[in-house]
């Protein structure tokens, strides 16, 4: 299924649940309601925004559809808009002074005069009277304040209630609905074949704005957009370059906006790719919801406060990592549930599809399990399961998400979800961070192990699988050299205590890239450290270090290699991590760092 067709299917599922506005309406965040008397006088200004929390947040409401407003000609929305259009006043951000916007207000007036001409509905007549009598001088007298400027308003007739007893806005009145539906039908474009449905329908000229993709334009970006000459073909303009019907465009726009809404539970931000995921209801609604929740937890396990909670989460996710059938993971899951994952990346006013995957949920869960299996390293650097953001953070300088390489997040997600090889740049980025001086923690070692294991399993050259925990008999020279480096560092720390620059700070990069030039010197210096230990109060520790060095060097057949390839540098890092943090070595040095700060992505 294509992206747009699958989103349309999801729109139908949402419409069945009543969670999306119907065709011609969209969900917008409104701050205030202007309550009008039948004469058109503004009686009061009710807040629609939610007042809980420190800042008042505008709340969503279903209003006549918003559209993109490019260019300089002001175009107004119907029965709602922001203060510039409704009242003709805005707030200059720099000077905090009121600024008049006569053109915008004139557009608002003109639209409503045209559409509401001849109406007899009490509420709409009140609005017409309000517009006739309004001028910006009446701003303070009618009860508006400066804090309300630059926010969205909608209208209500005083005392108007729906059958259920709730506030009924002007655009919900039946007469207003009829007028709006007629206006939408008249504005329809030429007919053509829609490439989503295959039926002959009016073609959309501009596609809906998708809001909620991290780092995109705040007024919304489009997946389907032809906003420059170079992008059009055969002399066609805008939406005619890719004929999609108005209904299909509205459907996919509403579905995607619902998926991207804050707190929807269907989105994850991974690096620069905002990922949305949903299940279809072919296995039942409960199965679909459970699959969505489980997918979110698989990619980003919930933070655990203490060891018991961590254990509980691990137990819940354990069947996935062992590749169990879906029924064992959760009883509500159905085999037939199809799952869709879409990764979107912003490019100012456009969105690019980084990856698109549709498969059965069982297959996806199995691939995530295989990914965890490839990453497994002992001692485990995570309390529950490896989250994708944790892996990507290790590749970024200073550990900041905005420093993650642009395409890397999308390619890593694609590798995880399709079971393919990890991008080469992932291993290179991790090695670069280690050589730049970032601490070699378990996550970096796990990433190296995962990349190398998958390369050997899926590539042309088969090499031995890298062990999960310390393997003292492992013959690979790069692994042994990593272990040797850890032992030498341990000897230095035991002999000299904490120094300003240990050999790890100074020599890790050089030792992993060109062992032959660094290790002889390190071994020479280690003799001094061992002598200090022997003559001091820890002779047995000194003896143990010597034994380890001897065991490692004994297994190195051909001396120190002149240089190590990048894969071998990865093995070096894994050997270092294993030796330093596992078993007896850990008793004499320090605990492995289990860093897992909870990062909220939504």
């Amino acid at each position, binding site marked *: *299924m*294509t*992206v*747009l*067709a699958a989103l349309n299917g999801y729109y139908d599922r949402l419409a069945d649940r009543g969670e999306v506005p119907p065709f011609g309406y969209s969900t917008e965040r409104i701050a205030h309601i202007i309550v009008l008397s039948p004469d058109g006088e503004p009686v009061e200004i009710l807040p629609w925004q939610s007042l809980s929390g420190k800042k008042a947040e505008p709340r969503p409401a279903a209003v006549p559809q918003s559209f993109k407003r490019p260019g300089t000609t002001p175009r107004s929305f119907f029965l709602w808009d922001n203060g510039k259009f409704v009242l003709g006043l805005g707030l200059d951000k720099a000077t905090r002074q009121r600024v008049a916007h006569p053109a915008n207000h004139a557009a608002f007036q003109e639209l409503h005069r045209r559409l509401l001409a001849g109406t007899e509905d009490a509420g709409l007549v009140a609005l017409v009277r309000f517009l006739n009598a309004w001028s910006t001088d009446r701003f303070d007298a009618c009860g508006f304040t400066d804090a309300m400027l630059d926010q969205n308003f909608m209208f209500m007739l005083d005392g108007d209630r729906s059958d259920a007893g709730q506030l009924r806005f002007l655009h919900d009145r039946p007469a207003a609905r009829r007028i709006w539906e007629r206006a939408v039908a008249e504005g329809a474009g030429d007919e*053509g*074949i829609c*490439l*989503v449905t*295959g039926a*002959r329908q009016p073609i959309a000229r501009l596609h809906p704005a998708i809001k909620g993709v991290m780092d995109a334009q705040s007024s919304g970006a489009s*997946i*389907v*957009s*032809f*906003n*420059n*000459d*170079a*992008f059009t*073909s*055969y*002399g*066609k303009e805008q939406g005619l*370059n*890719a*004929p*999609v019907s108005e209904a299909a465009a509205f459907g996919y726009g509403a579905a995607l906006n619902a998926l991207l809404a804050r707190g929807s539970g269907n989105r994850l931000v991974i690096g620069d790719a905002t990922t949305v995921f949903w299940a279809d209801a072919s296995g039942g609604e409960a199965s679909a919801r459970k699959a969505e929740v489980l997918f979110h937890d698989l990619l980003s396990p919930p933070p655990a406060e203490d060891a018991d909670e961590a254990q509980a989460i691990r137990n819940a996710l354990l069947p996935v990592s062992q590749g169990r059938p879906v029924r064992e993971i959760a009883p509500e899951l159905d085999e037939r549930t199809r799952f869709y994952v879409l990764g979107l*990346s912003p*490019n100012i006013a*456009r*969105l*690019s*599809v*980084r*990856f*698109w995957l549709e498969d059965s949920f069982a297959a996806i869960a199995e691939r995530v399990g295989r990914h965890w299996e490839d990453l497994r390293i002992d001692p485990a650097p995570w309390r529950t399961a490896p989250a994708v953001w944790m892996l990507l953070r290790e590749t970024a300088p200073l550990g900041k998400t905005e420093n993650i390489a*642009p*395409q890397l997040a*999308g*390619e890593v997600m*694609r590798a995880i979800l*399709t079971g*393919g090889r990890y991008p080469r740049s992932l291993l290179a980025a991790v090695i670069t961070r280690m050589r730049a001086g970032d601490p070699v923690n378990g996550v970096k070692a796990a990433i190296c192990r995962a990349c190398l294991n998958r390369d050997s399993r899926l590539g042309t050259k088969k090499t031995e699988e890298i062990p999960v925990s310390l393997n003292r008999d492992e013959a690979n020279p790069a692994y042994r050299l990593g272990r040797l480096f850890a032992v030498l560092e341990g000897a230095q720390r035991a002999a000299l205590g904490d120094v300003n620059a240990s050999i790890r700070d100074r020599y890790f990069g050089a030792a992993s890239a060109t062992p032959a030039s660094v290790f002889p010197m390190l071994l020479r210096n280690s003799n001094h450290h061992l002598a200090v230990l022997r003559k001091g109060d820890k002779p047995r520790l000194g003896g143990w270090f010597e034994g380890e060095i001897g065991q490692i060097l004994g297994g190195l057949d051909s001396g120190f290699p002149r240089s190590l390839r990048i894969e071998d540098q990865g093995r070096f890092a894994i050997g270092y991590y294993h030796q330093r943090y596992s078993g007896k070595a850990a008793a004499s040095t320090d605990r492995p760092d289990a860093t897992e700060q909870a990062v909220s992505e939504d």
Partner: protein
Amino acid sequence: MAYGVKLHVWGDRACFTRPEMKVERVSYDVMTPSAARGILEAVHWKPAIRWVIDAIEVLKPIRFQSIRRNEVGSRVPAVAVRKAMKAGEVQDLRMVAEENRQQRAATLLVDVAYVIHAHFELTERAGPGDSEAKHLSMFNRRAAGGQCFQQPCLGVREFPADFALLEDGAAPVSELPPDQRDRDLGWMLLDIDHTNDMTSLFFWAALRDGVMAVPPLNSVEVRS
């Protein structure tokens, strides 16, 4: 088919751009019939013949990759070119790429291989000396020798295609795994109808046992 040909085509990368995601390119999963026609026309074409694609066979697993490229956002206007032609000088005819920078991402196919099954028909511009056998032997000779008018490409010019003619009976091994052999691919672009105001023609594409059957242009399955 009496005058059918089979051409084995392969390449490192391919991008059969979807019309709806044309700016930030996303490729179709499988070669489009119009791209296949383009490859055949690059090998051999005369106004006397018109290539008709019958089927496209997918030989390798469908894999995607994402890249980002720096491109430009505007076209050199035709008016400026005409002015330069009239004036006879080109100093003012320029487009500076740095001023028009647009960065566009593309999600493309990696490591593709297809077998194109096609035949050709004679058009009304066929002269008395044109016969189907003559053009067929011309095509076979050129394809076997690797001759082409321009390098065939897999969707866009920057991804060249290697080609080899398949004689009767010869069939390359399909590396498509069993779970990817039967898929529904949704509505796919069949071709552009150049005679009818450049409208797009769509058909419902599906892979059956690794082969995508392509309906003829004027068949009832084609929506326009």
